[in-house]
């Protein structure tokens, strides 16, 4: 892990009318770090991720992602990051190979780069035989591994994973995390959200958002010590009051 900073946020804030969804959050994520971004539903995670990925302008504060300013260089940010979510990643009506080609094109790779990286990707995942299969017909676990590989196709410096393992079988879930470790070992920064508290243990550091603010940030070991808890699940329950009235 190098000492460089991949994500830098200072007093990052987003208001919607009178409601402050993200309230002056400040943190850094190092290059090659696996950073868990946790919080209850409605705590502001999605809004924060949308700002960091250049999809939503902050109301105030500052943030740089992969060395670029998310206010002024949002398009550049998008080129340097990868993104996948549980809800949407790949086109179900396109085949595996077509999805890879489409995303390679969107990220500006040459035909040759796309071909080489697609072959390599399918080989590594053991999907070569399924290249012509429509994505809608492959099992969810495969789909999520494929979506992650596609999000990494343009070799981004940072990859954002929004609940990548929701509903996935327990073995695939663990294989997915091994892919995360490998990406991080190769220098990619991984910014990941999850509702599985055992996965919080797999992160180098974890932040927990509570009502728009960062309620706690540290290594899993530090957080468990600070809250006198045996597991990250207990830490989360102590800290994250669900913000029921924040709908």
């Amino acid at each position: 892990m190098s000492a460089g900073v991949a994500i830098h946020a200072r007093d990052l804030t987003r208001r919607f009318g009178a409601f402050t969804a993200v309230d002056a959050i400040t943190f850094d994520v190092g290059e090659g770090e696996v950073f868990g971004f946790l919080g209850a539903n409605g705590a502001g995670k999605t809004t924060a991720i949308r700002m960091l990925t250049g999809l939503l302008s902050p109301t105030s504060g500052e943030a740089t992602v992969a060395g670029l300013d998310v206010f002024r260089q949002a398009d550049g940010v998008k080129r340097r990051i990868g993104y996948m979510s549980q809800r949407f990643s790949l086109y179900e009506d396109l085949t595996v190979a077509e999805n890879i080609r489409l995303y390679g094109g969107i990220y500006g790779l040459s035909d040759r780069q796309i071909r080489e990286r697609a072959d390599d990707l399918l080989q590594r995942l053991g999907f070569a035989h399924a290249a012509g299969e429509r994505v809608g017909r492959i099992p969810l676990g495969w789909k999520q591994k494929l979506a992650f590989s596609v999000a990494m196709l343009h070799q981004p410096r940072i990859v954002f994973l929004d609940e990548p393992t929701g509903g996935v079988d327990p073995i695939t879930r663990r294989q997915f995390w091994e892919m995360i470790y490998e990406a991080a070992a190769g220098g990619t920064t991984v910014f990941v959200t999850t509702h599985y508290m055992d996965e919080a243990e797999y992160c180098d550091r974890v932040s927990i958002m509570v009502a728009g603010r960062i309620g706690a940030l540290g290594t899993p070991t530090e957080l468990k010590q600070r809250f006198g808890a045996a597991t990250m699940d207990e830490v989360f329950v102590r800290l994250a009051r669900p913000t029921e009235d924040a709908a």
Partner: protein
Amino acid sequence: MEVRRLGKRFGKETALDGIDFTVDAGELFGFIGPDGAGKTTLFRILTTLLVPDAGQARVLGLDVVRDLWEIRRRVGYMPGRFSLYQDLSVEENLRFFASVFGTTLEAERDLIRPIYAQIEPFADRRAGALSGGMKQKLALCCALVHRPDILFLDEPTTGVDAVSRREFWDLLGDLRADGLTIVVSTPYMDEADRCDRVALIQKGRLLGVGTPASIGAGYGRPLLAVRDADRHRLIRALRAFPHARSVFPFGETVHYTDERADRSAADLIAELTTYLSAEGFADAGVEAIDAGIEDAFMALMGGVPEAA
């Protein structure tokens, strides 16, 4: 509830294959399995919304095909997707569901009070504008408002944060204590412990049925939890151990089983400790633990992920 050799196909896809189980009155029974395992298809058959291709299912002593109207009056069903009227208020939704079943909110208020009390401050809010946790509680109220004899909940906690999930299971525990039979599905293995009995489901088949404790106890071989600060390197080292059978990260530890069935846990601890220190792990910890539902599920999957 009694289900025998139940099967359902969609074209060439087998969604359910030879499903057998019973649920006793007053039980809190859970179906645990990943997306695509067949949980929703099963629930739709049991609530008379789909007709099975094979086998029989009886709910409250009634046949799911022949007696569908009687079953519909007596079951409560909370589908996986939020299915209330988004443009109606919280209270309007409840009144609507009560009136469909020929009752009124006033007549049933006592029954749903413990849950409704948590959303009553927002009675005038449009259902579509509620947070995830509140939508879920409103949907539960709507499924309960006609006093069903059995309640089906299809993945009520999917995508819900750990705190709201816990609260929701507390509510189900209260309903069970009042005698209601509850059948619930979830992809979260850690929720199995909240059930009296569970069925593990994968690719349309049941991998096992029993109490959470009995499923863990049926694991059948020593299970070791290994820990070291450098988990990634630890996993690789354990995989490289010549007798490794399975090596899975598990929270802050790595769970290990050995392919040699005749070795005791104590033997394995000694062997692994020696091996790991030779591999340069100065203070790796190794201890024997009881298998949980997720360990059992992975073993029953054959230790390999689902294939196409």
